[in-house]
């Protein structure tokens, strides 16, 4: 009995500790700038001007659009190119292809930031700075190893008899892939969309270099610009941060089962 109550108390305490940052953020974003009371003290009324100001000064609407475009295109390409590559790597296991597979997976440990200097120069040379396509291609490249790894592993569990049945019915190998195999990959594609989607949506380290110009900035970059300009106005900053994290948070709260399972699967198998 005491153990049970103790456990309950411990849990409440831990929950409180974990919720403090969120409490502070929400609380601050509803206080007017003139209110100098402690950050712990609840807001007296719901003051919403912070949101309007942050939205206008950080250009969150535009950043949201950029984020959606970059994330959506990157995910579509990662899944398509990854699935294309995984098919021969699983179904046609020659020694050469196993070498290629090893090569793809070893790209997993290349930390993107370490090759920043040459990569940035290369993107400047091909004229990709401040263009969506360059950032998208880079995001795709650095997400592909994980995607290929997960897809190849999953394809191993799709029975080869399906390919043979398709072959007998007169499909060529590419039609087998597009008509039979691709639709069966849904579960692992869901995992990839979640893991890589969260990563790209929140990405700062690439976006800050390759999408610098106002107008093509993603949410994290737009927020960082906004905050370096208005850092003295804590309440605006809080409102901006809250709006910046809201889309994924809402999605997470509704689909948390899939998020937690997908991210854990992605990590464990990776």
């Amino acid at each position: 009995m005491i153990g049970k109550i103790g456990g309950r108390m411990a849990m409440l305490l831990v929950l409180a500790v974990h919720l403090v940052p969120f409490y502070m953020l929400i609380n601050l974003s509803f206080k007017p700038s003139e209110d100098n009371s402690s950050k712990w003290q609840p807001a007296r009324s719901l003051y919403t001007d912070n949101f309007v100001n942050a939205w206008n000064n950080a250009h969150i609407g535009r950043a949201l659009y950029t984020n959606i475009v970059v994330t959506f295109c990157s995910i579509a390409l990662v899944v398509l190119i990854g699935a294309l590559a995984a098919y021969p790597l699983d179904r046609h296991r020659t020694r050469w292809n196993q070498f290629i597979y090893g090569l793809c997976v070893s790209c997993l440990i290349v930390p993107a930031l370490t090759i920043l200097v040459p990569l940035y120069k290369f993107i400047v040379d091909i004229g990709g700075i401040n263009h969506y396509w360059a950032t998208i291609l880079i995001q795709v490249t650095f997400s592909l190893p994980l995607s290929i790894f997960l897809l190849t592993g999953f394809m191993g569990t799709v029975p080869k008899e399906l390919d043979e049945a398709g072959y007998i019915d007169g499909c060529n190998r590419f039609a087998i892939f597009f008509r039979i195999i691709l639709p069966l990959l849904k579960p692992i594609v869901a995992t990839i969309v979640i893991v890589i989607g969260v990563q790209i949506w929140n990405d700062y380290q690439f976006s800050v270099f390759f999408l610098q110009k106002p107008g093509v900035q993603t949410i994290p970059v737009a927020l960082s610009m906004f905050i370096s300009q208005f850092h003295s106005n804590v309440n605006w900053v809080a409102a901006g941060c809250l709006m910046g994290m809201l889309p994924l948070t809402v999605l997470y709260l509704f689909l948390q089962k899939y998020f937690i399972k997908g991210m854990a699967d992605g990590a464990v198998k990776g």
Partner: protein
Amino acid sequence: MPSQQPSPVRPAGAAVKPGYIRTFFRSSSALNLMYVPALFLFGIFIVYPLIKGVQISFTEWDGYSQHHTWVGLKKYTQMFHDKKIGTTVRNTLIYGIGSTLFQNLLGLAYALFLDRKIKGKGLMRTIVYLPVIISPLIMGYIFYFFFQYDGGALNDIWTLLQLEPIDWLANGRRAVWIITLVNTYQYMGVAMIIYLGGLQSVPKEYYEAAQIDGARWWAQFRNVTWPLLAPAITVNIVLNIIGGLKLFDVIVAMTNGGPGYASQSLSTMMYNLYFARQDAGYAAALGNLMFAIICVISLSMLFLLRRKEVRI
């Protein structure tokens, strides 16, 4: 015009070609075409920059002009004499190893706590995991409110306890540990979920057998749970170490490497060298150093831990 007339050889060639193409596409090697797009991307965005990075690190270059001067190993010798490098490497290792330690200890503790039939389990999992999906940059800003000197939330408590307010982030050493803790807070949910999965995969019969043999909680944990958690531990350690060594966003948001360069990591230092100080050669050399450190640490970790795993 005669030049646009089909040449007499063409029809024969056209008759042969589709047949040839068809046989090629029927053969299983044609499938290898399917990984060409992926290899192309790896080639131009990973392999080429890796090689180019080595080349740049041997030059004196400001990062944008066409003017490169070959300076040989100068940037690397400069690195060994740079006083900031010692601090920066030490900070990077603290970010990497410190976060790994905290995340695993806390993650395992939470997982053990939640691996029972208790109310509110789902709620707790949701909340502990929530920071994982929030941008680390935003997380850094939120915690900045907490630790800032003027009106910071922590200092409010300090004043309440009649203590002198402290400028938490003004001391480099302390800032490094605070950033490590913020990173831990953000990503311990991942460790927790992976450990929970590991715990749930341990067959219940093992515990029953251990109970019959008279094993207490600690003996059960030590002899049953711990060895069978090994795969989960491997995953967590490798994941957290790589994440910690690459830490960038949180540092930018909380201290931007300051005060001075006291909380800088290799990644923020590289950023500053390239974009603020325009020493691209040095930045590239630093990138190569960081690449070597991360590869050596993560591969040796993987190798060491894999050997210790117990298979069920």
